């Protein structure tokens, strides 16, 4: 269709236009109703309650630290983040899943109480705190929670799936990989691309190798990014201790295989000398409702034996 509008007819420009049309069409294919499916909302609501509880206590305030340190990193997100404090939404990683679905990992500071007072009805806009919780809660000073959102830029505004995470206190484990989250591309769960994220604060961690193990024993590497936040970036955001974010973009096939327990996806955490610190099944706590099959046997270190 560009042939009669552009000042010249070039197949390459026409092909490029078709690419933009394909991307635009992708925005209409996704349905926000399916994206906001019950499991995701339940998880988000549960975490919001935990965050609210933690916010009453010093440990709770400390728990909001790690994403705060990310604030200021990277560039401006492709999608608007209207609920974040202006200027805090920043891209900490971007790329495509193995099946070429673009994603962005965005850190943002959010004040869940902004715009309304406790004891009053919550505003109509999307908010992680329900009116019931707001009515029961005590007045709080202005505060923020911090979210790591996985955006899907090709889907467009108000289509991205996101969840709020916080610091170690929410995890409670001794594992160097904390606060795991799995964000699906808008649509049905388990047969869509997804991005796994987790926090890595242990300074002895030098690398993390992610692999997929099939039940018959074959193994293949899975692409992953360990995004380090250190040096001048730390100074910029006012952080004191360096940390990393583990990001594992997954194709629809990889998600489907993991959800059906046909494969396990494991992370081998190593120190600077290459020694194994830990091996762990990244998706042990995901997909529990997806299959009646028991997970593969695991060795004492948490990986398939």
């Amino acid at each position, binding site marked *: 269709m560009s042939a009669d*509008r552009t000042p010249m007819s*070039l197949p390459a420009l026409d092909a490029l236009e078709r690419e933009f049309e394909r*991307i635009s069409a992708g*925005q209409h294919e996704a349905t926000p109703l399916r994206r906001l499916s019950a499991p995701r909302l339940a998880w988000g609501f549960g975490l919001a309650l935990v965050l609210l509880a933690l916010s009453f206590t010093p440990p709770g305030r400390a728990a909001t630290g790690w994403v705060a340190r990310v604030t200021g990193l990277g560039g401006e997100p492709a999608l*608007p983040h209207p609920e974040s404090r202006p200027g805090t939404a920043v891209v900490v990683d971007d790329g495509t899943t193995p099946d070429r*679905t673009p994603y962005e990992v965005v850190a943002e500071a959010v004040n869940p109480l902004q715009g309304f007072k406790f004891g009053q009805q919550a505003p109509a806009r999307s908010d992680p705190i329900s009116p019931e919780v707001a009515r029961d809660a005590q007045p709080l000073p202005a505060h923020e929670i911090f979210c790591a959102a996985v955006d899907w830029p090709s889907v467009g505004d108000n289509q991205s799936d996101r969840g709020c995470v916080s610091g170690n206190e929410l995890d409670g484990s001794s594992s160097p990989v904390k606060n795991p989250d799995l964000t699906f591309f808008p649509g049905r769960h388990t047969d869509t691309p997804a991005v796994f994220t987790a926090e890595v604060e242990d300074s002895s961690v030098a690398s993390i190798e992610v692999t997929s193990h099939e039940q018959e024993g074959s193994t293949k590497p899975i692409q992953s990014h360990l995004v380090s936040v250190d040096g001048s970036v730390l100074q910029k955001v006012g952080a004191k201790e360096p940390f990393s974010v583990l990001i594992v973009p997954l194709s629809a096939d990889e998600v489907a295989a993991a959800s059906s327990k046909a494969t396990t996806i494991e992370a081998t955490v190593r120190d600077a000398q290459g020694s194994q610190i830990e091996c762990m099944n990244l998706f042990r706590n995901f997909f529990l409702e997806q299959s009646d099959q028991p997970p593969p046997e695991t060795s004492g270190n948490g990986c398939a034996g």
Partner: protein
Amino acid sequence: MVRRKHALLASSERFSAFYGENAGDLLVFFARRVLDPDVALELTAETLASAFLSRRRFRGSSSGEARSWLYGIARHQLSRFFERGATERRAIERLGIRMPTMAADEQQRVEELADIEPLREVVRSALAGVAADQRDAIRLRVVDERSYSEVAGALGISEPTARARVSRGLRSLARALEAQGITKEEIA
């Protein structure tokens, strides 16, 4: 006011029309400045992809303002290209755009439309006037598409020095283009 402006490029249909109105001119704009149709196509795609990603932040209300906004992005891309000696594909990759390739006859057509050959003569003469060390660095970086560390290794210099030589050489070429009627403001 803001809502009306916001809607100008927000819908896919309007962005498609925006593409149709500007893509061809944009390609020629880049081709006349980088003298390479393939590079021009990449810069065109990256510029339009950047515009697509940030279209909801566009605050203009007319097609003229939209065009000015687009060429602001284009000049930024061009400036980055001259600084780095390489195209940026950040927005292209973010959107997952599959880059088309140009056939030989298409490249020829772009060169004709952009009237590139006379400009190449300008560049050739300008290149002859560039200091030899800068010319070698430009050739390795831009023509041979070597990394800065490889340029440094090939010339026996440090990487910062290699970057400086390429940068100075490209600025000399830019000045030569400016002398031929392409203003500095248009280039960067």
